[in-house]
């Protein structure tokens, strides 16, 4: 739909069907003027996207998990070079132990890679975010990851409102590169930069990322105008107005989160939920504004920093540092364990009743019996 001109990808569950389908689209000519490169690794996939983007072609790839780590060096390089590549990340756990199911360890491992990271809450949003991603990427000349939960979203069969091609073409204009390898006007891209200017280059990246916060919001706004549907953007709040206790999530847990909030409201607990769509750049103001009225916040995420704890929780706490808000950090749904509504409800109830201490990571869904059988108490 977004008319990529080069697709270079390497198969990995749960992304395989995406690249299979794209290969078919290119072969049948449905996706015209597009080259599909069957590369020999993810490292080559991202590298080929770098080459393609630098000669002015819209470049796309998709990966997950081990594949994302395998291409990591090139992922950092793409953002350093300021190339607006779009990549779907079908979020999957990282081994060992090898595990093909969903969590966010892969994208979180590349948190600091200089890419914009957008997380889809459902299949419709995943579709919409791809349209927005190309616009955001090309407007900012920064690469964008569209993260969608492996299997949960990548293999969900849901009715999706697919926009008409003309609408998409109007929304995603042809790619006009901000830097281009052009024989008529030769430039050197990727020169070696020493201590005399490296800091400034990184500073400019940070500046551009800051600007991208506005761009992400603006493109989501334009999307709503064009398609009449609210999708993407920085954060999405649900029943936050008078909420005492707010559950913060990213990705597909958002659905369960809203249901739990409704249930708790019926029980008389003033709960709300905030879904983070844009994780990098970190939408500090939007998060602060959304959570300023709360007394307690619980961040539930599908990844954690081993040896430290919550990843997103740190950012949330930082955004609220001077407000009287308690932030509890929790992790759940690792390696494909389904995030059950009952567990989430118990978590939020516990936080609302001030039963869960801060300063440590709470595991949502530990199987204590399994641990005991392994001799762990």
């Amino acid at each position, binding site marked *: 739909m977004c008319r990529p*001109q*080069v697709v*270079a990808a390497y198969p990995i569950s749960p992304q395989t069907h995406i690249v299979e389908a794209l290969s078919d689209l290119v072969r049948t000519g449905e996706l015209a*003027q*597009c*080259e599909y*490169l*069957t*590369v*020999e*690794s993810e*490292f*080559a*996939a991202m*590298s*080929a*996207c*770098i*080459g*393609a*983007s*630098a*000669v*002015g*072609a819209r*470049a796309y790839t998709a990966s997950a998990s081990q594949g994302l780590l395998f291409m990591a*060096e*090139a992922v950092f*390089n793409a953002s350093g*070079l300021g190339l607006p590549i779009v990549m779907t990340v079908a979020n999957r756990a990282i081994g060992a132990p090898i595990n093909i199911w969903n969590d966010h360890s892969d994208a979180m491992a590349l948190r600091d890679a200089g890419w914009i990271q957008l997380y889809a809450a459902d299949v419709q949003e995943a579709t919409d975010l791809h349209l927005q991603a190309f616009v955001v990427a090309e407007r900012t000349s920064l690469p964008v990851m569209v993260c969608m939960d492996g299997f949960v979203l990548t293999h969900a069969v849901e009715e999706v409102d697919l926009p008409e091609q003309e609408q998409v073409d109007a929304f995603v204009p042809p790619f006009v590169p901000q830097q281009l*390898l*052009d*024989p008529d006007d*030769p*430039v*050197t*891209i*990727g*020169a*070696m*930069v*020493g201590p*005399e*200017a490296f800091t400034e280059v990184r500073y400019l990246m940070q500046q551009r990322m800051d600007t991208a916060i506005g761009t992400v919001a603006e493109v989501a706004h334009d999307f709503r105008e064009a398609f009449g549907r609210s999708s993407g953007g920085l954060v999405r709040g649900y029943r936050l107005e008078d909420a005492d206790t707010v559950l913060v999530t990213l990705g597909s847990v958002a659905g369960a989160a809203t249901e739990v909030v409704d249930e708790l409201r019926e029980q008389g607990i003033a709960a709300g939920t905030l879904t983070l769509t844009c994780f990098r750049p970190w939408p500090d103001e939007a998060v602060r504004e959304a959570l300023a009225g709360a007394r307690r916040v619980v961040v539930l995420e599908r990844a954690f920093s081993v040896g430290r704890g919550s990843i997103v929780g740190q950012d949330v706490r930082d955004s609220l540092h001077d407000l009287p808000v308690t932030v509890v950090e929790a992790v759940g749904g690792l390696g494909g364990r389904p995030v059950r509504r009952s567990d989430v409800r118990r978590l939020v109830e516990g936080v609302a009743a001030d039963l869960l201490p801060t300063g440590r990571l709470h595991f949502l869904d530990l199987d204590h019996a399994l641990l005991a059988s392994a001799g762990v108490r």
Partner: protein
Amino acid sequence: MTSTRETRLYQVGTFAAGNRLLDLEDRSVQAHPDRTNAITSGHRACRGCGEALGARFVLDAAVRAAGGDLVTANATGCLEVFSTPYPESSWQVPWLHSLFGNAPAVASGMAAGLRAQGRATRVVGQAGDGGTVDIGFGCLSGMFERNDDVLFVCYDNQGYMNTGVQRSGATPPAARTATTSTAGDVPGNPFGQGKSAPLIAMAHEIPYVATATVADLRDLEDKVTRAMEHHGARYLHVLVPCPLGWAADPSDTVRLARLATESGLFPLFEAEHGEVTGVTPIRHRVPVDDYLRLQGRYAHLFGEPGRPDLVARLQAGADRNIARFGLLEEGGDRP
């Protein structure tokens, strides 16, 4: 203090680069009135750097063959570092450096991106031997196997020079490097199985493979030109002596490249679709000693007591090349 040194002038009859006394069609790209000058002077390469010389001739010839319509991808390594110290750049052609191990894949992506836009711009990828035969090898093989429309050039100085002369998969046996010292029973790089990137390229049956050196720049240019006549994956492996890494005199760069071929250690050949189509016969065969003795990296093989046994093993390797490629037989494709 001034010193005088003897200057010798070479006249017509040699194919020396820059010889402006030749007829126009016999001149090298460098001596041609519309020479392209892909890499300008002022870069930071060491004195006598074979890589700088090789890259200049390769790129100039390629730019000319492409009518100026060309882009390049470059791996990390000496060539990248000495040519683009920010805010300077020696490159007069569109040039991208991404990483150490991905230049072939970046070049593949460029070719795909250009094709998708209907542009006829040609693509040249380049890397040192490390970026080619070691860390970039997977990407290179993938590029060959898909027959992507890229000319990939390896500047082989037989080691990781940019990081201070460590061993690479292309370092020859017995050579001293920073990671293969002269201590132990077999001093220098161990005798292994070798890794001939040109032969491996040929095994992919790609349209064109050739080897060349900076000793015969006309031959190098011809091979680039021929490579550019083909489309699909093409591979050029250029031996580029490195005075620093080889501990050799900077003025011996061209001589060393010549001795490498005349000893049989570095055979010159061309191949199309997996078959050798021509070899450059050795005109004046020399023993490997002549080549080795000029280089400090082999100093441990000579002197007292020396290691004549290892020199003999190196000679055996050269003899094997000579027999394998028929380097002493007449009937190569050029006189």
